[in-house]
């Protein structure tokens, strides 16, 4: 069972009418969205790349939802570096569908059964309301795909070697799930496994989070993979996702090196100068497309991440093969109102 089955032309043929219909639905049910499309003169898309995209940051500044207030079942929030928070409104159906599709996506690499799960994080993080929204939601969301959860870090954020050893003693001889943020996995699992001779050969690692901290330590995605293989961890899947499209994750294929789009999602790389779609090999801004956002107009979003498509229908899975290259630096004004905060 896989959600990575459609070749690119099949995918576009299947997605375009659904996305078109979503656009019409959101226009009819979300007035601010309709105003944006009207002001920009949007008529109709004859291809995926012509669909009207919203800058993802708009969800931090506007309340965008296509459902009545009394049908709001869940409000997802993301923490932002500037203190602004995205607010994503889900009704019951959308929440269920997103969870179902997320499950189908991770089951592609985990199989249908729940596996014992090692969380490379601290339970204390769930109590910290400020970091909870971003990190906690990721951990909580993913934890439903495992069982017999063990936290690799104690309440002080220190490596709990006894807990890890205990987990491996009970579950280490059959497939188990490891989840954590990329940097924490490197610091608190890889190094600990290496130094203590832990055997992670039956582990399947799913990890996410920016590479910046690792790149600062001169660890590339390739080296990350190679070093983890050194402690037996060869089934490693990075993913790219965001709260604004919570049920959609772009998952690293079994051979590593690139992310793939599930059947209900796609990416377009845009030239930030002309806004045209870029061909494989040319880096630009990542636009993420998914049919899952039915309760808010988040089906076509321009992120502030840079990425590149490496190839189409030429990898381990069909469709586009791409990488995330990092964040676009925020625009900085050099005006008189440039404040003095730094020295106050």
């Amino acid at each position, binding site marked *: 069972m896989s959600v990575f089955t459609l070749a690119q032309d099949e995918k576009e043929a299947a997605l375009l009418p659904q996305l078109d219909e979503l656009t019409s639905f959101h226009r009819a049910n979300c007035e*601010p*969205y309709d*105003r*944006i499309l*009207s*002001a*920009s*003169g949007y008529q109709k898309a004859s291809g995926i790349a012509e669909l009207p995209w*919203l*800058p993802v*940051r*708009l969800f931090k*500044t*506007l309340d*965008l939802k296509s459902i009545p207030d009394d049908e709001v079942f869940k409000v997802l929030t993301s923490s932002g570096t500037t203190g602004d928070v995205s607010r994503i409104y889900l009704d019951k159906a959308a929440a269920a569908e997103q969870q179902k599709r997320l499950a189908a996506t991770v089951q592609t690499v985990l199989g249908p059964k729940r596996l014992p799960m090692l969380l490379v994080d601290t339970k204390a993080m769930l109590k910290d309301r400020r970091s909870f929204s971003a990190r906690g939601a990721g951990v909580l969301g993913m934890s439903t795909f495992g069982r017999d959860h063990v936290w690799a870090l104690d309440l002080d954020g220190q490596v709990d070697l006894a807990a890890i050893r205990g987990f491996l003693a009970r579950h280490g001889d059959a497939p188990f799930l490891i989840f954590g943020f990329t940097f924490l996995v490197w610091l608190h699992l890889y190094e600990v496994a290496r130094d203590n001779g832990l055997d992670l050969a039956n582990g399947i690692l799913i990890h996410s989070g920016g590479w910046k901290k690792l790149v600062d330590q001169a660890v590339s995605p390739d080296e990350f993979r190679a070093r983890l293989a050194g402690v037996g961890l060869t089934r490693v899947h990075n993913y790219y996702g965001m709260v604004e499209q919570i049920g959609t994750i772009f998952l690293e294929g079994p051979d590593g090196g690139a992310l793939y789009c599930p059947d209900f999602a796609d990416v377009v790389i845009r030239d*930030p*100068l*002309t*806004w045209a779609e870029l061909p494989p090999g040319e880096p630009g*801004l990542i636009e993420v497309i998914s049919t899952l956002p039915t309760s808010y107009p988040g089906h076509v979003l*321009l992120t*502030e991440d840079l990425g590149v498509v490496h190839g189409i229908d030429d990898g381990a899975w069909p469709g586009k093969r791409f990488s995330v290259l990092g964040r*676009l*630096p*925020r*625009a*900085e*004004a*050099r*005006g*008189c*109102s*440039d*404040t*003095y*905060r*730094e*020295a*106050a």
Partner: protein
Amino acid sequence: MSMRFRFGAEGDVTAPSDDRLAVGDPRVVDFLAKLARKLLAPALARRHPELGSLGYFLRPAELKRAVDRMRRDDALVFPRGNVFHIPPANVDTIFVYSWALAALAGNHNVVRISSRSAGAAEAIFQALNEVDADPVIARTQRMVTYGRDDAVTGALSRWADLRVIWGGDAAVEAIRRHPLRPSGRDLTFPDRTSWAVLSIPGWRAADPAARKAAALGFANDAYWFDQAACSSPRTVFLVGAGDAEAVRAEFLELLLEVVDQRGWTVDAAMAVEKRVNAYGLAATGAATSMEFPDNRITSLTLTGSDQVPRRWIGAGAFPFARAGSLVDLVPVMTRQDQTVSHFGFTPAELREFATALGGRGVDRIVPFGSALTFGAMWDGYDLPAEFTRLTTLQT
């Protein structure tokens, strides 16, 4: 205290000093005139065109005019004393304007230079340090960089007779946590908004060369500091009867030509920033249409002159609004509004507008192309007067 001296003698900047300067002190005049010559050197002015304007401001004739403005018949005029300047980090030249006027008034100055200063500011420090100056200049005029240090800001605030705070509302509030001495005062430059007004009949009456010149002047006003200087025009009001659409289209076309010729660019982050803000204005119903003819120009049609955004929305982002006449704009203007740059109006129309404003908003009304030209009167203050104090004598 850990301080990096960019200009002036190193040492305790708040220590009592025996040096005395007079208003229009010849040693200061001489120093500033020499500085002006350096800044006006063709090679430097080519690299940093804003230094050309600064050099022009510091020419001997201009200095003499400023000094003359400080003199009075009804009082003896003296320096205010110690002046602590906190200029904005990223407008590379503004610190020189206010400091130079304060120095010309004979004050002892400490200018806090942001560690983020770059480009033109570095060229200015080099020029300052190359001028062959009387030693009193280095002892009384200091420019320093220091980090997040409340102790230093506190000590300088107690030292100052006048504290000059640029950088907007947040900066003013942050600095005001540090008390001044009881006789001290603040001269503040809070958040400001500036506008452009374009007369539709005036545009139609202008010949092609005048229209081109208007677009060029406006482009300089808007693009020089990424449209983020306090006096950079943001919303453009199309004023008067006639086909506003046609005027706007031609204006934008000419503007794009200038931007092309100048080779100005807008980076990806700025282009996204403008999209976010434009979409936001559309979503809330403030704008009915938005066009992105090019990354460097974003134009929006506002639903009314009461919908004008008062915050910076990006470099080359121009909301347009209609108005029947300049006087119709009076109710829209607030105390936050600083500069109105104009094209195509008669002096009588402009005077009527200024009079109707009655000082409740707008400090400067200037032609297109002059929005960024610093003057001794700024933000409603007569700076030479602010930098001096008066002694009356009755015999």
